[in-house]
Each structure stands twice: as structure tokens, then as C-alpha cells.
């Protein structure tokens, strides 16, 4: 039986403001799903909720990894079960070297019962692995010594997220606009790398506004989010259509979600 990530009727609020209003999604390991939708529709919110960000409160519904109730787990426990999210906006940790950070993270992922202060992956072994992965991603070795996301260019940050995924080898990965900020060549490389890292080993949820990342990772399913709900699910042809024609048809056919979207936008605009 393959691993499965199951999201059921998920409602999420941020600062008491409802954002997700009943999301259902089932992702099996080995599948690629694309998640599309206009700005502000709730795509990143879904990612944060799956990873367990404390600011994203689940008010209703459930998230399961096989038979484990993820809502009872802290973010690091979810990560150690094999969940990963490449952030839309990665966070800088000044003074902390990529290599040191990744070594600790990888040690935890590979030994999920590891306690604080217990042994890390041997330095030499890890260095070798890291350098190999960086070479694959055509990253400068200097990168390992830089501080996590500190002063990285937009593209460098996204590459660093892919590098982390390659090292941590999750079962499920949410890639939140990992293609934005990358130049044309870099997107192609990223797309290839994701496929090489093991598209077949992972369940991938690719959040994107473009089609380049999907080139080497053809989606089994394409979901469209609007106003905090998944309003349509289809095959690759749905992504094609949205790229060419935008979201007008979606809004027209789902007036209730479109209305929610308008309400959410109005509220955001009024926020102090």
C-alpha cells in the first residue's frame, strides 16, 4: 500500500479570519498534483496548515498521513514523518551556515527518534553528500558556507529549497511557487532536478502560476483553488486552459467561491 496524504474538509483561519473553507485532497506517494488558483486564494495557507504553522488554526476537518493524525503533531514531528514544504518566501537565519543547518536537519530526518544533543551524521559523509547534490543542482560549493537564505537572491533561495528537498528526501513535498524568481534556464534545471530527485519516490503538490515546473513533472491531477476551496479538479488540460485563458470561466461557474474571494479581498484591503 502506498503512503497517502489525505486532507478532509479542512477549514483554516489566520488571526480569526477564515481563509480555507473546506478543502479535500488526496495525494498518493508517486503522484504529482498541481495546485493553481488566483493570488490570495489560499494555496500557501494550505501548505502552512499541512506543515503545522502555529499561526494557521485548523477550525474544522482533518489531515492524515496514512493513519496518523497530523493535527496532533508539531511541525518538526510532521517533517520527521516525511513532510516537506519548499517555501514561497524562505526565511533568513543569519549566522547559521547552510551546511550546519542541513546536517542537523538531515540527522533528524534519517533518525526520527533522535534526541537533542545526540550524534549527527558524520561530518565527512555529510559533506560528500552535500557537495554531490550541489553539483547536481549546479550550485557553487561556496553556498554551503553561506548563512541560510541570508542575502540570497530570489533565485538562489529557490534553488536552496530544492537542495534541501534533495537532502531531506521527504515522502511528500509541497513546492510553493518554487519556480517564481528563477530565470528561464534555472526553471528548466529545477524542473529536471525535481524529477531526478525522485518524482516517483515522492508525492508532489506543486503550487504554481506557470507551466514550466510541470514540464518534467506532468501532473496526474490539477486542482484549482478559489476563495479558499478547491473548486475544480482535472487533468493536465486544465492547467493548459488556465494558462491560456485565465480564471474567468472558473469564477463564472463557481459564483459562491468567487463571492468569497471578493469578500476576502475586500477585508484584506481594509485591514490596517
Amino acid at each position, binding site marked *: 500500500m502506498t503512503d497517502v496524504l489525505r486532507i478532509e474538509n479542512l477549514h483554516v483561519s489566520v488571526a480569526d479570519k477564515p481563509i480555507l473553507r473546506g478543502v479535500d485532497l488526496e495525494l498518493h506517494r508517486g503522484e504529482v498534483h498541481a495546485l493553481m488558483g488566483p493570488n490570495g486564494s489560499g494555496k500557501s495557507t494550505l501548505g502552512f496548515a499541512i506543515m503545522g504553522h*502555529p499561526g494557521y488554526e485548523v477550525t474544522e476537518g482533518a489531515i492524515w498521513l496514512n493513519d496518523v493524525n497530523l493535527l496532533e503533531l508539531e*511541525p*518538526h514531528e510532521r517533517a520527521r514523518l516525511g513532510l516537506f514544504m519548499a517555501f514561497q518566501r524562505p526565511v533568513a*537565519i543569519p549566522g547559521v551556515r547552510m551546511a550546519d543547518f542541513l546536517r542537523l536537519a538531515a540527522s533528524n530526518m534519517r533518525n526520527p527518534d533522535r534526541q537533542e544533543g545526540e550524534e549527527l551524521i558524520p561530518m565527512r559523509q555529510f559533506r560528500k553528500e552535500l557537495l554531490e547534490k550541489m553539483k547536481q543542482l549546479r550550485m557553487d560549493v561556496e553556498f554551503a558556507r553561506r548563512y541560510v537564505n541570508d542575502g540570497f537572491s530570489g533565485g538562489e533561495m529557490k534553488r536552496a529549497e530544492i537542495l534541501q528537498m534533495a537532502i531531506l528526501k521527504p515522502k511528500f513535498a509541497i513546492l510553493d511557487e518554487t519556480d517564481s524568481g528563477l530565470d528561464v534556464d534555472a526553471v528548466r534545471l529545477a524542473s529536471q532536478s525535481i524529477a531526478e530527485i525522485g518524482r516517483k519516490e515522492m508525492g508532489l503538490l506543486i503550487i504554481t502560476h506557470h507551466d514550466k515546473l510541470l514540464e518534467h513533472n506532468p501532473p496526474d491531477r490539477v486542482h484549482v483553488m478559489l476563495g479558499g476551496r478547491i473548486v475544480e479538479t482535472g487533468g493536465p488540460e486544465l492547467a493548459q486552459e488556465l494558462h491560456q485563458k485565465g480564471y474567468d470561466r472558473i469564477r463564472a461557474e463557481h459564483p459562491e467561491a468567487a463571492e468569497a474571494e471578493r469578500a476576502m479581498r475586500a477585508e484584506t484591503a481594509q485591514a490596517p
Partner: protein
Amino acid sequence: MITDTGKKKPEADIAQVEINKYDFHTEERYVYKARKGLDEEIVNQISDLKGEPDWMRQFRLQSLKIFQSKPLPRWGGNLDEIDFQDIYYYIKPADRQGRTWEEVPEEIKRTFDRLGIPEAEKKYLAGVKAQYESEVVYGSLREELAKQGVIFLDTDTALKEHPDLFREYFGTIVPPSDNKFAALNSAVWSGGSFIYVPPGVKVEYPLQAYFRINAENMGQFERTLIIVDEGAYVHYVEGCTAPMYSSESLHSAVVEIIVKRGARCRYTTIQNWANNIYNLVTKRAVAYQDATMEWIDGNLGSRLTMKYPAVYMLEPGARGEILSIAFASRGQHQDAGAKVVHCAPHTSSRIVSKSISKNGGRSSYRGLVRVQRGAHHAKSNVVCDALILDPHSRSDTYPYIEIEEDDVLIGHEASVSRIGEEQLFYLMSRGLSEAEASAMIVNGFIEPLVRELPMEYAVEMNRLIQLQMEGSVG
């Protein structure tokens, strides 16, 4: 016999074992233990036992008067709970100083073994002094350095063996009248390091002293004097620890440093006092033409630390640097900082202070930059960053700037930050526990300073921070 005073939890985790590394008490078998309390009799006793010249006895007695006449400082931290009559001012742990570890009484040797001193000595030190209570019980210096004329002695022995050199400098940088605790130290001082580096000699590896308080209600008053002659270089490192008791102990040192023309001195402190120690220390250096003085100060532990290493730049081209890290946890107040005084033109200074407050701890930066009239083209840059880990903790900044000259360049930046939820979440989403994540953020915060330490001390510093972060301390 060595007994662990740290109460072991059933799940004796790594952190707990590590804390016990410092928190153990060695059975007291002393050669001499003066009675508690401070008066002329005690001061005379100390001087008698040491067989000092009369001028030193007079210096001590005079200092005692100054101590008694000065009120407690009303700034900094709360000193009201120190009971000066409830402290042992002098404890002699051994008959004589060992030149090999075998000559050190077995139990005391085991103490330093546990603290890793002999091992470090073999690996990367040019010389070691180990002080236990009031006296230095072990001393070494690599032979080739001794041959080059380097002197590294405990301060008592230096007074006997190099009386002229000693008298020329002793008490000239920090006179007893400087402050109440300098006066106290001058009255009852014992132990500490004396270093002289001859012109042009560069001591490649660090000289290290380790100060251990073992007895309860102990007062440790070491006195350090370092003279770096023209064009010479030395890196001196001190470490300090004590076991945890319910009542308070006092550590009040005076450190005087003279850095002559073109010379450089680096003084690194990594202290990890138990939480019952009042640590009230006066550290001051003077730098002559083109000389550089660097203080690197890691303040962990203690109940209250008040310490402001100073550099007086007396001649053109002199440079002073003070880099400090303070970590205040529950029940702790770190009032630490720096003082730079530009007395000559074309002098420069840099102060970098990083403080971390956690679990209700309080850390303050208190710093003074003074540019005297005539010290034109002085340059000074101050950066102090505070990181607060929770809402119960506190950080304050007291920067004082006194400038009597127009043509100067002074920069001051201060920042206070809290560990961000977004940073924690990012790291935790990669499998780091919350404790690991905040420790990593804190290590990153102090990294720019730790980077300046030799590797061994950087590792030590990070390890100590890690211990504090794991929260079992305090």
C-alpha cells in the same frame, strides 16, 4: 572525594550530564582556611601567610580603608544582598604549586581533569595556570617561551621573583580608589596571572588560566597583570566555573594590562559561573602608540555580573576592541559592556556587544565612549544587539558618549530583536525541535563574534550556549 551536587533527574539526559561537568563539589581538605569576615586582622593574616614585603601590606591595609569608606554603587545590579562578613576571604588549598600535574593534590587534580584542562594543555596551549580557591595550584610554560624571556607566573610568585618589574606596574592601571570592588580586591587579592612578554616576542599559542571556586561562601580575588612589551604579542585566555550552592559566593578580580608600542594583546574570557556567584570585575588596559588591545568576553552564568572591560588609548595609532557576549537566564542579571577612552589623535576603537535574555533573565549593555580634547581623528564604532527569547526576559541599553573634540567619527547602532515565529517554524519544518531551532538561531546571532575565537574556544562557547538553551541551567 568528588560529589555531584546537581540533582540528577531520572532521565539523565545529555544536558544534565554536561551540567554536572561543572556542578560538582570536591571535598574540602585545605592547608589553611581563614575565618569568615573581613577586617584588618584578616588582611594582615593573608599578608603574613604570603610573606610579603611591607609595601604590599601597607597597600592592602590602605585599600581596605578605601573599601570600607566607599558606598556600594547604586547603578548596575542589586548588590544589597551581599553579606561581606559571611564570606571566606582566603583559602589555601595546597602547600605549594605543582610544576607537573602529579605534584598537585590528587583530588584537585581530578577536578581539573574533569574540566579538561590537562588535555587542552597538551593540545593547544603554550602555558597554563590553574587556580583553586585563593591560590594557583599548578603552573606551566613551554620551555622555548621561558628561554625567550617570557614570564608566566602566578601573581604572588611574581611579586617575589620580579619585585621591580612588579612594583613598576602593579596598581597603576586600576588604583584601589577606582571603585569599591577594586579596593576590595586590592585589600585581599590572591593568585591570578602575571605575564611579561619581551619586545618582539610573539607567543603563538594561547596562555590559559582557569579559575575554580569550590567552597561555599567563598570569595575569589585574583589579580592579573600583563605587560606586553614593544612589538610583542600574546593571547591570554581565562575560564571560570564553580559548583552551585544555595548561598552566594563572590568573585571580584582586577586585571591590569599594559600594551606597549606596536604590541598586541588579546584577552579572552569564557566564564560559566554557577548562578549563585556575584561576579564584579574591573578590567582595564592601556595601549601605547600603534598598539592593539582586544577584549573578548563571554559572560555566562553568575547571579549578577558587572563588568566593563576598558581600553585607554594613550598614543596615536592605538586601537581598542571589545567584543562581548552575555547570556542571562532565570534569576540572572548580566550588566556588561565596555569602555573606550581616546586620549590621543588617530586612535580607533570598536565595540560589539551581543546579549541574549531567556527565562526571565535580564541583560544590560552599559558602555562608554570618551574622546578627550586633542584626540582628533578618533574613530569609534559601537554595535550592540540584543536577542530576547521570551516575553518574561528583558534587555536594556545604556550607551554613554562623551566627546570633547570636533573632528571625530563615532558610530552607534543598537538593535533589539525577538526570535521570530517565522524563523522557528522554518527550522522546525525541516525536522528541528523547537529547542534545537532556537539554539540554532541564537548560535547564528552570536556567530559574528564566535568566529573571532580560535576554534577550540569557539566550540566551547557554542557548547555553553547550547547548554543554556537546553534550559536545564538556571
